[in-house]
């Protein structure tokens, strides 16, 4: 089969050839009743997932929701206890190496070799994919440029900042031009600037047609990157949809946040605002009133003679969706 020159720019010389039909309509990731148990503990409890080619799909949920276990099954590292799983039309149990040859993985915990240089980390990794030294070298230059680490190429990894290490991990995960990029908590522990820089890189990949699958417990990350997401809690899906759909279905247009004094009992105030809105959430430090008219509700609060220390009207976010679905906040 001949491949047009324009499509070969990022490819590497090949020995074994495996061509996937362009008309592949099956989902890139297809799971039915996917389950993972560790002894008595059920980490993933019979989930169904379909991720289409080119989609950016997210698993949103708190720590321990089963996101990482799901990712490790999709990454063909951890075999499912039960259920069906197909990645790129293949069976992880039988075709693990062939599937992993087409995945890029950004793990939650860095697996960089800190004793090696930035460049060496990419060189050694490319060899695991059976790439020739020349192909890895060329790809390495291109990727270091993409993640803006060209000037640190010869430095050891050890002294790099957390954000730089994450960018290097992303560069490494792209060495094989993956069809699917798996990102497990890609920006956890990074400062805001580093996070935005990383999101920018991921957004570019998405525009290029790379299928992104990520887990996060940050709602802003999910909203920034995901076309579609599932809210995951205790190994199951609590809801599924685009960020906008989820907010429309499970929350109101706006949220009024009321803060009273630090020593006040918010439950008392919850009783006092009863009837103003359909739904009130009591958090330790504030009340959330779900409303379609924030300013109107604010006025109604004052009319009842209540004097909050501060009021804030904001748009609903995925955090509110999660609170509604699970009764808990995402980030403590």
């Amino acid at each position, binding site marked *: 089969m001949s*491949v047009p020159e*324009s*499509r*070969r*720019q*990022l*490819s*590497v*010389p*090949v*020995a*074994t*050839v*495996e*061509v*996937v039909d*362009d008309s*592949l309509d099956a989902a890139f990731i297809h799971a039915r009743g996917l389950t993972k148990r*560790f002894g008595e503990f059920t980490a993933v409890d019979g989930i169904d997932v379909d991720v289409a*080619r*080119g989609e950016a799909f997210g698993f949103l949920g708190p720590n321990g929701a089963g996101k*990482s276990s799901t990712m*490790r099954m999709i990454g063909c*590292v*951890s*075999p499912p206890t039960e259920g069906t799983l197909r990645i790129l039309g293949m069976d992880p149990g039988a075709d*693990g*190496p*062939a599937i*992993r*040859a*087409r*995945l890029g*993985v950004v*793990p*939650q*915990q*860095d*697996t960089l*070799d800190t*004793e*090696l240089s930035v460049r*060496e980390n990419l060189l*050694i*990794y490319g*060899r*695991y*994919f*059976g*790439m020739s030294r020349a192909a890895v070298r060329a790809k390495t230059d*291109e990727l270091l440029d*993409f993640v803006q680490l060209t000037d640190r190429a010869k430095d050891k990894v050890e002294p790099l900042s957390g954000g730089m290490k994450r960018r290097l991990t992303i560069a490494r*995960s792209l060495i*094989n*031009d*993956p*069809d699917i990029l798996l990102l497990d908590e890609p920006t956890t522990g990074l400062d805001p600037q580093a996070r935005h820089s990383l999101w920018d890189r991921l957004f570019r990949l998405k525009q*290029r*047609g*790379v299928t992104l699958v990520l887990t996060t417990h940050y709602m802003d990350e999910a909203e920034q990157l995901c076309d579609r997401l599932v809210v995951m809690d205790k190994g199951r899906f609590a809801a599924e949809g685009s960020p906008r759909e989820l907010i429309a279905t499970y929350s109101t247009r706006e949220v009024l946040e009321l803060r009273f004094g630090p020593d006040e009992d918010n439950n008392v105030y919850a009783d006092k605002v009863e009837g103003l809105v359909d739904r009130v959430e009591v958090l330790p430090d504030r009340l959330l009133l779900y409303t379609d008219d924030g300013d109107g509700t604010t006025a109604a609060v004052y009319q009842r003679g209540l004097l909050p220390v501060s009021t804030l009207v904001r748009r609903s976010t995925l955090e509110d969706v999660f609170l509604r679905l699970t009764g808990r906040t995402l980030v403590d």
Partner: protein
Amino acid sequence: MQPDTTAVLRQRHVPGSLDRVGASFGFWAFQYRRTWRGTVVSSVLTPVLFLAAMGIGLGTLVDDGGRLDGAYLLFLAPGLLAATAMQTAGFESMYPVMGAIKWVRTYHAMLATPLGVSDILLGHLLWVVFRVTSSAAIYLAVIALFGAVASPMALLALPAATLCGMAYAAPIFAFSSGYEKPSGFAALERFVIVPMFLFSGTFFPVSQLPDVLQPVAYATPLWHGVELCRALVAGTQTLADALLHIGYLSLWIVAGVTAAMFFFRRRLESTG
């Protein structure tokens, strides 16, 4: 980079299992470039010091006693060859394995690529074969320089030493991958490796041990390695004895690799 929306159409290279094991081996070889000088120096220095102090220094006293058929140096040198193979194998199979699981997380990085658990394990074990063989080769050369090699059959002592080393490496891989904390290594060193080093026939014949301890010494892989190396270096090895020793050491390797495969899978497939 150019926009690339036709990712699926690209041809894919899936490395075969030999290539995958080779890539795993390749990582350790790549890393060794940083430390090889130190290991070569100690590979030369250790036998020189041991043979000078014990083979010649202590050996003079032993030879005066006249209890051994030949010179003590000839008795000791091949025994040390096997014992050093055991120690090199132990050293390479403890911290590097735990580090690749827990600290540097090298194995986890490899598992995100076409490499699978068995590729990772076999590649790393092959690397240990290389380390044990190369340091044993240096040892054998030093022994020859000390004039303690009696027969060309001694060349076969090299694979024999490797076999002895791997009879330790494989089960220690299993131990290291199943263990949470490095404190187990100190115990393994203190209560297993060092006693074997001292009492498995390296420095004196096992027949000198109390009767109850002799079967224990005969059960250690090291004793079989020592006997094999000693008879090969002296040129007195018979085929029947050789097959017995080789068979016993191979049994440890097969059992060790099987156990290591089990623990590696359990450890690497279930936890992040």
